[in-house]
Structures are given as C-alpha cells and as structure tokens.
C-alpha cells in the first residue's frame, strides 16, 4: 500500500499549516477536498517539497497559498500567474503551482492565463471553478452558466461562459484536465501527472460554493451540488475540448482532455541563451 494512501492525516500534517486551522472556508465548500488532493499529489509526485512554490491570487480559492506548508505567495487579484512566471524564470529549479479561483484566473487574470499557456512555461495551474466569485459574496463570474442567478444577475445571467479547457487549448496549454470534487482519486492522479508534466498544465476543478452560488441556484447545501455532479458528470478522457462546455443543468464532461508535447519556454530560453553566449563578430 503506497505511503500516501496509508497515511492521509500525516500527509496533511506534513503539507498543511495546521496552526492555521480551522480554515476560513464555509461548511461544505469544495476547496477543502481539492486541496486535500493537491497535498497528496505533491507527495505522490516525489517532488522535493522544498522546491515547490504555490502562488495564489485573491478569492476563497486563493486562500490555498496560506494553508499549504510550502513556500507560498498570496498575491493580488488576478496576478498569481505573472508572479509565478517571475519565480519560475528566475529559478528554473522551482516547481511552480498556481492555485486559484475561476474569477481570479479567468476574469481579471484571463490575459495572464492565456499568455502563460501560450508560452508553455513550466507551471501547473489548478483552477477551482465554483462558477462565481465566492469571496465577495457570489457575483457572476466568467464561467457561470447562462441564466444562473447570482448576486449581480438577479434576472439570470445574460452572458455565456468560457469553456476553460477549450480556451486553454486554444492558448497552447499542453496538459488540460477537469474533474469535480467528487472525482477525488482521479483529481489526485491528474494533479500528480500535471506536476510532473513539463510545460503548462491546467487542471479545472468543479467545486461547490454552497454559501453563495449554491444558495441562489437551488443547491443551498454542498451535498446538493455533489449529488448534481454525480448525476451530471460523464468521464470522457481525450474528449475534444470543443465539446466540454458546461450549461446550467447539462452534463459535466470530466477527464483528461489534452496531454501533448511542445517545446517549453525553458527549452527555448536555453537555445537563445546559447546563441547569446556565442561570441559574434561585433
């Protein structure tokens, strides 16, 4: 029996700042289980935890940086990725993980997200998608399905959402997966793979926010959301990202969608550095 399964709680003690518990998340929030998977994945990956940096933006999900017992950076709203880019470029030995929310990564931070994917920088981005801005009280976010109720769409959301795996695919990410917080073993495995994958990896985690999003959308308890995921989710590894968009009540396609190889930013930077060091005429 591998170590990480045998001893979940000691793993938690190893990677979690237990002096900071209880955390600030609401009862039945999905961030906790996702974090749990992340901690186990770190262990499973065999990476040296001293060389892992976790960077978060602002939001409930963005509080993860504050709980992991790793070098961790709680930056500004939307800016985790460029901060992480600086970290990684300045010290390529680091494994840099961005853990944040849908609003942080895809609303205010959307540009950084697509540019980081384009560069194929070595970085794992874990996005808690709870379809809204939990921390500020449940406003509509760029992944909120059409017509849902939020505190700023009292008459129904009039904007269609991003299909994040497709957006990331189009931007150049080389590893893209999605699970719900019910698919915990899969999520753990996926994050482990993502951590070990060179280049830009993106893991979307569909997660309940009972306190605000759920309350306004007939899932006032976290369990309601999990049951809905249980009913709606379909595992489809290798699914075409085009076909994985999420609607209010439609299926939630989960799985590992993309896993391809492209030159990483660090590889290309190496080539350039070599050219630069070659003595030229001038």
């Amino acid at each position, binding site marked *: 029996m591998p170590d990480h399964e045998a001893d979940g*709680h000691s793993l938690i003690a190893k990677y979690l700042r237990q002096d900071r518990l209880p955390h600030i998340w609401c009862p039945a929030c999905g961030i906790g289980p996702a974090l749990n998977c992340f901690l186990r994945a770190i262990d499973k990956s065999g990476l040296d935890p001293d060389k892992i940096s976790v960077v978060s933006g602002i939001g409930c999900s963005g509080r993860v940086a504050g709980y992991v017992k790793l070098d961790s950076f709680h930056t500004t709203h939307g800016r985790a990725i460029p901060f992480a880019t600086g970290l990684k470029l300045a010290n390529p030995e680091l494994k840099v993980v961005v853990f944040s929310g849908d609003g942080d990564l895809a609303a205010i931070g959307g540009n950084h997200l697509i540019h980081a994917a384009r560069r194929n920088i070595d970085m794992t981005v874990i996005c808690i998608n709870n379809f809204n801005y939990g921390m500020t009280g449940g406003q509509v976010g760029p992944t909120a399905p059409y017509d849902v109720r939020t505190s700023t769409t009292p008459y129904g959301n009039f904007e269609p959402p991003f299909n994040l795996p497709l957006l990331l695919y189009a931007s150049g990410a080389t590893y893209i997966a999605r699970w719900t917080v019910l698919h915990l073993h899969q999520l753990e495995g996926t994050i482990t793979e993502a951590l070990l994958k060179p280049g830009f990896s993106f893991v979307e985690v569909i997660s309940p926010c009972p306190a605000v999003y759920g309350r306004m959308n007939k899932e006032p308890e976290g369990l309601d959301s999990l049951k809905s995921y249980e009913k709606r989710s379909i595992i489809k590894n290798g699914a075409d990202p085009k076909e994985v968009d999420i609607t209010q009540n439609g299926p939630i396609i989960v799985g590992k969608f993309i896993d391809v190889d492209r030159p990483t930013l660090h590889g290309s930077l190496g080539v350039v550095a070599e050219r630069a060091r070659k003595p030229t005429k001038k």
Partner: protein
Amino acid sequence: MKLWRTPFDHNHSAEPLAYVFIDRERCKGCGFCAEYCPRDVLKMGSELSSKGYQLAVVKDGSKCLACGFCELICPEFAVKLTINNKAHSEIKP
C-alpha cells in the same frame, strides 16, 4: 461513476481495515463523508458542535474498507483514518 477504490478483498478481513476518527472541533456537518462512504460506515448524528454544526459520527466502524474517501472528501480535514495494520497483515495477497 466509481468514486472510490476497493483497496483489498475486504471480505477476508475479520477486523476493520481502518479506524475512522472524526475531529469534533473541525467537523462542520457537511455530510460529504456520510453520503459518500461506500460502506455506510459514517452517518450524520444529531448532536451539534460548539459552533452549532451537526456532527458526523461513526455508525459501524467494522465495515470500513480503508478506502480513504472520507478523509479525502472532508472539507475540514476533520476525518482521520488509522489503518489497522493487523487486519491488513491478515490478508493474503
């Protein structure tokens, strides 16, 4: 949908494969563990915690598979699973 793993052939075990402990200070009564325990080891009790949350309790520890799902799904890091090494050693692979 298969959400958990069956670690061993549990029928061969006489003792529980693991002991489940719920931290009463941490549990916030979300019900995730009870709902998704594949063996109905856990249930929601009627007692309230000091903050007013309904606590999860162990209903029948002997049925535990040691699958770890309860530990993994608990948002509060409130579930602690202790593997019963004795029970495991009894199992012949």
